[in-house]
């Protein structure tokens, strides 16, 4: 069960979710959020399982958090595992996740970014650095996915075209000109559909964020 702490009474359903096993971290990050002017309610989940379960509840109510702040080293489900679960679920494609971890290992940072974290702070970021990220998260609202089934349709189209291309490649030694034209057409379809799919999953504001230079360390 998530612990809820309203930073101010905005009358809205906006919130920030902190997933971290250390209570001290939760209090420090909450204080940081106050410093940068966050007005959302702040909820705390003390491990990855609870965090995912809370996010599942929220997405069903179409009230995804403005921001998720995620620790990496937690008992049970690690932060990386949480990121992987979120990445594999299209309902969370627009979720804004920031990792705040005590690890400074390059492989931890790289893996977190690979799994979809928006950025990575070593515990704890300065208010100035954190303020920038919070501003981007706020601008990015609403975080609720807009999937009206279109992403699923695109995924299916890509898979079907992939199937056709795989079958075609098994008769590679027997290509004639007509086969090659067909292959080109299928390749074009796959490229277009994949680009469109990625656009839907990664809205332009995210793409504009200047990675990797924003690997902000405090």
């Amino acid at each position: 069960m998530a612990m809820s702490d309203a930073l101010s009474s905005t009358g809205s359903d906006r919130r920030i979710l902190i997933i971290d096993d250390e209570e001290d971290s939760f209090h420090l990050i909450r204080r940081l959020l106050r410093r940068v002017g966050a007005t959302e309610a702040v909820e705390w989940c003390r491990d990855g399982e609870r965090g995912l379960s809370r996010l599942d509840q929220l997405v069903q109510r179409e009230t995804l958090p403005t921001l998720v702040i995620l620790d990496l080293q937690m008992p049970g489900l690690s932060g990386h595992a949480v990121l992987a679960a979120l990445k594999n679920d299209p309902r969370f494609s627009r979720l804004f996740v920031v990792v705040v971890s005590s690890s400074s290992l390059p492989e931890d940072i790289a893996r977190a970014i690979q799994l979809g974290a928006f950025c990575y702070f070593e515990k704890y970021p300065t208010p100035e650095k954190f303020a920038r990220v919070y501003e981007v998260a706020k601008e990015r609202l609403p975080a609720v996915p807009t999937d009206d089934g279109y992403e699923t349709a695109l995924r299916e189209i890509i898979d079907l075209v992939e199937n056709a291309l795989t079958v075609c490649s098994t008769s590679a030694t027997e290509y004639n000109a007509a086969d090659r034209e067909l292959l080109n057409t299928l390749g074009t379809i796959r490229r277009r559909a994949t680009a469109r799919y990625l656009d839907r999953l990664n809205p332009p504001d995210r793409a504009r964020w200047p990675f990797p230079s924003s690997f902000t360390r405090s």
Partner: protein
Amino acid sequence: MKTDHYKTMLESVERALQVCRESLDKVDESHRKICDDLQDARDRLRALLLSSASQRA
């Protein structure tokens, strides 16, 4: 052998075209282009399948 491959490919492409058309109401020019290309691929495949089947016969 090739006829069987064309048949399998045609099934995939026809299904992809169907999915694409079902989403046509929600999207824009870029999506219509994907549908047009799928239709083109389907027509090519049909022709290849016919030609391959007639050669085999």
